[in-house]
């Protein structure tokens, strides 16, 4: 029942770069929409969510790629899930202990990283089939793509919703568009961003 190794043959730097654009979890694969839409009310929230998720993703990929040959195929999902859940809880407790303000702003969405589908997805399609070095690069790449997407989304929503980015006033005297901080603003912004990314992709 040994799972076949499908080692990726890309040049090593491509393992990282592909997560930023061509396999960007948000703009290209549209995975992990729950945190994307829920917590990006400000640039800081988006960035911290991205960092927390990247931590969980990279740690899980590291562990999974190390033990990939030991885990029987039948229980791989259960094993991956336990590992993900452990790192999520670690991240949650760490944020609560060291960054209570961020933890409060992200609310229940830190524990919910556990159900973020692209974390399990990266284990299934990559870390469980590739050596540790490549798996970490892959996880960091996808994580960076997620951070980029969430911070961009958060910055736009914060800018239009309050005239600020990362809490710094950018447009003085801006009349806030309340809708951008509400869920509807998340859907609108994401829609326009994906459209823009598709337009850029098409011109290539």
């Amino acid at each position, binding site marked *: 029942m040994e799972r076949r190794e499908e080692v990726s043959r890309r040049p090593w730097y491509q393992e990282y770069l592909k997560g930023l654009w061509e396999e960007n979890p948000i703009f290209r694969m549209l995975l992990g929409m729950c945190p994307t839409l829920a917590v990006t009310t400000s640039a800081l929230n988006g960035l911290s969510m991205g960092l927390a998720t990247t931590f969980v993703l990279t740690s899980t990929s590291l562990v999974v790629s190390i033990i990939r040959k030991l885990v029987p195929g039948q229980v791989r999902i259960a094993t991956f899930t336990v590992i993900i859940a452990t790192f999520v809880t670690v991240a949650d407790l760490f944020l609560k202990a060291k960054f209570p303000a961020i933890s409060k702003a992200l609310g229940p969405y830190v524990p919910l990283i556990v159900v973020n589908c692209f974390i399990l997805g990266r284990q299934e399609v990559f870390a469980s089939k590739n050596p540790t070095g490549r798996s970490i690069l892959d996880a960091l790449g996808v994580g960076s793509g997620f951070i980029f997407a969430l911070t961009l989304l958060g910055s736009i929503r914060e800018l239009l919703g309050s005239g600020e980015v990362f809490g710094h006033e950018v447009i003085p005297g801006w*009349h806030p568009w*309340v809708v951008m901080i509400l869920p509807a603003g998340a859907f609108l912004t994401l829609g326009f961003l994906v459209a823009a990314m598709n337009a850029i992709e098409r011109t290539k």
Partner: protein
Amino acid sequence: MEGRLVVAVSPHIRAEMDTRKVMMGVLISLVPGIVAGVWFFRWHALVLLASCLAGTLSAEASACILRKKPSTLGDLSAAVTGVLLAMVLPPTLPFWAAFLGGVVAVGVGKQVFGGLGQNIFNPALVGRAFLMAAFPVLMTTWVAPGPEAVTVATPLALMKFDHKATPLLDLLVGKVGGCMGETSALALLIGGLFLVLKGYADWRIPLSYLGTVAVLGAIPWAFRPDLYPSPMFHLLAGGLMLGAWFMATDPVTTPVTKVGRYMFGIGAGVLVVVIRLWGGLPEGVMYSILLMNAVTPLIDRYTVPVPFGGKR
């Protein structure tokens, strides 16, 4: 060669009516309402109209350029959206907010779906819903008609929160607080009748919509006239007249079949009464039409006529 011999595929019988003519008819039928709005709210109304039109027309033009399509400004649909949007906004709304509403109405409400005929929701109401969510305070600040522009509550808000009725004659003429083009029920009625009599809109929707509101509104009123507004009040107050004649009749976002149109009107009527009497908001016309827009494809699916010899 030109025009001598036309070779075309079917249909060969063509009506004289095209989009531009229908839109022109709608614009003409809106004139009484606009005149009343300008009369009551003076330059506020004119600024509002100009900003909304600038928003919708520029969004239409830029969407056509972005999509590399020929300009569709000539079909006047963007102009109709702009005028309708201006009529459902508070007169004192800042010009930039009205402009933004126009851009959202045509950009998000219509063009992202692929332009006229493809949109799910009434574009003017999408613009209004966006502004309502974006600027809740600006969108609920009302002024009394006249040169002074004193802040007042709308008749529906007075009814809902203070149980104070407004004289029906004021509602009919439009000498009350409210959106720029919704206050004068009489002017809108004249325009609406013109629209229906000329065949630009189907009478079934306004009839079933207004009828449902009147009948449902009458039931609680019959039991507790001190607590609930009369059916006449329901019909004349708020944006019902404007919504029923000019927005619920939008051919793109309403059912195509006759039965479906009755269902649309009845559904929207029920929603208005429910929201007005038991909801958190004083007025429900916008959401009633938007919600019924959303179920229109479903209504169409279940009311599609069976072709001769066909099977269900």
